């Protein structure tokens, strides 16, 4: 019975998270009849897309035992720079090329993070806090600080902004960007589970020294990981620009806490070695559910930040207590066997 319950709970408390989401949904639909409509659901999907892409990047870093706060700066840097270049060059590059350029820019910024962190073994939070301001400062000083409106954006980009996959009769719509976002999510889940690179990330996060002795090239894997996460952030930045139909260099930076909260709630461990794509998706959904709908159930929007902070603290508390429990468990098992 214990194992059945354990399986329901999931390796990273995913089951628990589903239960919490269900409770929140039920509570909200009781509090407000306007909540249970297709419109709310599709708004949730729409607002979860960008955070999900960022959260996947944060999750990858966290599994490897680090913490990254520079991803919003990388995202807007890459997306805005690409837009600025195509406007200044006065050429419409087409969607694929726009995404490729943005992701190369993002990848290079991520590479810089990776080299500094992996080569010199520095604390990831402090390094990325530093590079975040460097990237943002360079963007605003040397590339541009002006808001780019929908009219100025390349046609191929704005065309995608209005491309709805499915317009729901009762109001609301499913945006077509959901396809690439889901694709990327599945791809990362596959990579983590079935590739040597993915397993290496878990191994490094679990025990760096053990990973090294097994023969994993720790520094190289970390550098590639940060590059990948940089590219992923750039992808998220492009999705953000397409959904918002504008490019504002002052945006995105400042949202990192919400994302980290979502990832931690999703069961990824700050100590590394633990975390899953499913958990991260659920964590993002939970945070967005609260962010989107607090007002709907009559709680003023000023409570948003406090609510997410509380949620984050509850999540890490659960994790910390679970950590203590899992450390004690082997001793108990041993005693039972002996008896």
């Amino acid at each position, binding site marked *: 019975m214990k194992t059945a319950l354990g399986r329901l709970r999931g390796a990273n408390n995913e089951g628990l998270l589903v239960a919490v989401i269900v409770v929140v949904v039920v509570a909200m639909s009781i509090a407000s009849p306007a909540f249970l409509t297709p419109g709310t659901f599709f708004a949730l999907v729409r607002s979860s897309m960008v955070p999900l892409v960022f959260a996947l990047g944060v999750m990858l870093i966290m599994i490897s035992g680090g913490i990254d706060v520079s991803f919003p700066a990388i995202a807007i840097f890459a997306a805005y720079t690409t837009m600025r270049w195509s406007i200044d060059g006065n050429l419409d590059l087409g969607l694929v090329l726009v995404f490729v350029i943005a992701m190369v820019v993002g990848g290079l910024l991520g590479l810089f993070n990776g080299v500094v962190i992996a080569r010199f073994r520095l604390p990831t939070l402090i390094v990325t806090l530093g590079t975040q*301001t*460097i990237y943002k*400062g360079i963007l605003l000083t040397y590339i541009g600080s002006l808001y780019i409106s929908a009219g100025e954006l390349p046609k191929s980009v704005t065309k995608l902004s209005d491309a709805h996959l499915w317009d729901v009769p009762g109001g609301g719509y499913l945006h077509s960007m959901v396809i690439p976002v889901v694709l990327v999510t599945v791809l990362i889940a596959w990579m983590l589970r079935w590739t040597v690179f993915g397993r290496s990330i878990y191994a490094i996060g679990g025990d760096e020294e053990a990973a090294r002795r097994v023969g994993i090239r720790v520094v190289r894997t970390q550098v590639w990981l940060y590059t990948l996460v940089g590219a992923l952030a750039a992808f998220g930045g492009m999705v953000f620009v397409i959904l918002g139909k504008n490019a504002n260099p002052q945006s995105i930076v400042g949202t990192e*806490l919400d994302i*980290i*909260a979502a990832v931690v709630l999703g069961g990824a461990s700050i100590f590394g070695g633990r975390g899953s794509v499913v958990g991260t998706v659920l964590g993002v959904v939970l945070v967005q559910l609260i962010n989107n709908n607090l007002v709907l159930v009559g709680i003023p929007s000023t409570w948003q930040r406090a609510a997410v*902070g509380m949620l*984050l603290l509850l999540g*890490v508390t659960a994790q910390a*207590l679970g950590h203590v429990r899992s450390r004690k468990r082997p001793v108990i098992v041993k005693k039972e066997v002996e008896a």
Partner: protein
Amino acid sequence: MSDPSRGPLTEINQQVETAFTAALERIHVGRGVGRMALLLVVTFIFFAILRPGIFLSQVNLQNIGLVAPEIGLLSLAVMIAMLTGGIDLSVVAIANGTAITVSTLYTSVLNSQGQGAADSMTPLILLAGVAVGVALGAINGVLVSVVGITPILATLGTWQLYNGLALVWTGGITVSGAPSGLMSMGSAAVLGIPVLLIILIVAAVALGVLINRTAIGRKIALQGANPVASKFSGISARSTLMMTYATSGLLSAVAGLIFLSRSSSASADYGSSYVLLVIVIVVLGGTNPNGGFATVLGVILAALTLQVLSSGFTAMRLSAYQYAIAQGVILVGVMVLDQMRFKTRKRRPGTNSEEQGAIAEAETK
């Protein structure tokens, strides 16, 4: 690594210990104070030569003296947390919490009982504000020591939470009104030195004495240098960490009072750019991000240096974003340089690894 063929164990221990303390002293001077003093002087001269008219003006110099205290106090608050190997990201939120508490309490007393009552109540109101700061710091302490959450995550959460609660309380607007005594203190000067700067110096000296001359300070440093050795020495990690984060809250609260004395208004979003700045200062001041080493003087000098840099950038008509780039580059650059120096020192024969030294030190106690 020590030579195994040499004499009895105690002798090795003693040698390890002397080598360790010698290394410690070298790091203290080399990493923090000496370098920072030099950097401060160089930065100052650099801008003084480049823009003497603006940079050396009375207003500019006074401005450095007025902004440095709040940043210095917040840096000390982060420093003491980093000394235990942790970090406190919630310092600015705590400072704002104190400022908002004092401001709203004062305004409500003023409105209900008049100026005279409000003035006579001022000490009590200030005390309440400081108590709020210490309490918020103590909550951090509980989360880190009792619940066992990693300091980065715990204070990331409380940063968000305290900031969010301040937003709820103020409704997102700036609250104005500050005790008149506090405001006159903000603009007063003794012998041309701003009172706020004197407050920073007093706080720094007090913290220096706490860290270097008292048992609790030693415990805090050992907790960061080697938690295992600390545990085997019979030191309670729980009470040490509680004390650390409560002190951090106290220092942040004083910074909050300074916020209020300078602007006579408080808001939830004041000083949001300080979080990075303060970490830059603490690391630049020679604090080891992994715990164990920190000097108050180094951190104070680093705070002054960055303030000089900031006003120098303004005098050169460079933007706040360029100053942000400089902050980031300094932070990453200093850590990389430290790491490279640390590596070369480690390879040199004769010096011992930190852990052995700390354990040896703990055993001889």
